[in-house]
């Protein structure tokens, strides 16, 4: 297995995904096949190649430090599943 059941559980936990046992089994099989396929990149010796994070040569695109109106509170809360005044309401931590 290119990726183990435990690794899938670990990664699901990191990504805040609650999976059923059936999902864990199915995804372990599928992810294993995918990880094996993408691991092909390790065949290449690229020790003297610079990584590309971004296709364009953009560096430090600044905007002027000028105050502008921001999103009104009601707009920001317009899609809130649960709100309390100007707060998003969530279960306790």
């Amino acid at each position, binding site marked *: 297995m290119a990726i183990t059941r435990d690794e899938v559980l670990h990664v699901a936990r990191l990504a805040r995904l609650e999976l059923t046992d059936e999902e864990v089994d199915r995804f372990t099989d599928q992810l294993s096949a995918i990880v094996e396929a993408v691991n092909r990149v390790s065949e*290449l010796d690229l020790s003297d190649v610079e*990584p590309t994070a971004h*296709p*364009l040569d953009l560096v430090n695109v600044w*905007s002027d430090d000028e105050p502008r109106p921001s999103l009104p509170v009601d707009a920001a809360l317009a*899609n809130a599943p649960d709100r309390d005044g100007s707060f998003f309401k969530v*279960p306790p931590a």
Partner: protein
Amino acid sequence: MTIDTLRLTAEDAAGLLERKEVSAPELHRAFVDAIAERDGGLNAYLRTVDEPDGDGVPIAFKDLISTRGVETTAGSKILSGYVPVADATVATRCREAGMTLLGKTNMDEFAMGSSTENSAFGPTRNPWDPERVPGGSSGGSAAAVAAGLAPWALGSDTGGSVKQPASLCGIVGLRPTYGTVSRSGIVAFASSLDQVGPMTKTVRDNALLYRTIAGRDPADTTTVELQQPVEIPEREDLNGVRVGVPRELNEAEGIEPGVKELTDRTIELCRELGAEVGETTLPRSVTYGLACYYLVAPSEASSNLARYDGVRYGLRVDGANVREMYEKTRDAGFGDEPKRRIMLGTYALSAGYYEAYYGQAQKVRTVIAQEHAAAFRDFDVLVSPTSPTVAFGIGEKAENPLAMYLSDVLTIPSNMAGLPGLSIPSGLSDGLPVGFQLIGPQFAENALFHVGHALERAIGFDYVPRRLA
């Protein structure tokens, strides 16, 4: 007058409006009626806007383009009921040009897929054969244009999601140079790859729509000004154009014989139109392109999809505490493909694996960019089939993620390099459309439109699906 929605191009529509042969509300109504008549069997639209909100040509938007006051789901249950409070920049630009919104089109959830079967709202069917997929992830937009349910549409392309459905539905699709079209207000999948692209019946329509949406946006600092103004193509010859045929793209595994035959014929047509055609090579870009993409894109997606947590918008499944709410919401709201890609990305970025997976993929990306740049020293445009196959059957690849990923083997390499790509129909194979891919260096859209238009004229492909004619 009766409006032939199946055949009408956006340019035709603009002409009718200008000569006052038809009014904007009449035009909008004609398409709304066509949708009522033909979309039941296709499911191209997730929702329609009956009242016109502009005095120009109607347009459809893929459902990851934020539209103020109109539900935007990105094809996912986790955004069901989400109504944006602002338009995406591309939506604003279309609106300011007078275009009137027809509706939001179906897509693979979060743009993850090549068939639109990963939509949480049912698949879209190919207007050429409803038992087959329209491609993806912009399948709804492609089907809408092909079936005359919109004169033109916007889709988005990350690994080929504009080009491939355009190919499978027999229409024209442009994936622009990365950075020329704003991503502000676009539901993000992979931020260093996502680009909104025009999907149209003709190359001229494509150039017209690109001209409306392209150009630097202060709200998206990854955008840049266009290097030249967009030219609407007119020339019908290819004199002086150097066309390169990369052997790895044209001999890739899985290319169907019918697709190969049409591609070869179109390459020969380039010669007849006056182009200088030669063979070239992309030694490692095709062999390692897919693996590179399926490391980079899911990694970026794992970050971009972290925001769907039930707190501020979209679906919320309650829990005893915040952590449980996150986990239950995300499990209920995401389909299988987003879950797979989030986990793959999280894994590739996790401690101990980052260098070997994501870090290495970033270096492969450099190699791909360099190989394309080398080919462009000798050629103006590179060509290949867009998709290795014609439209496949609904359900045929749905259970096999890796088989589905192979649909993008020809569109992915140039995408990794941020390069523009145009897909035009090259003909029919067994009654199904085949797409021809034109790849250019960065900012070479005008060259792509020129070559695409000349070929389109010479090929004379009828974009109206035979069964609807």
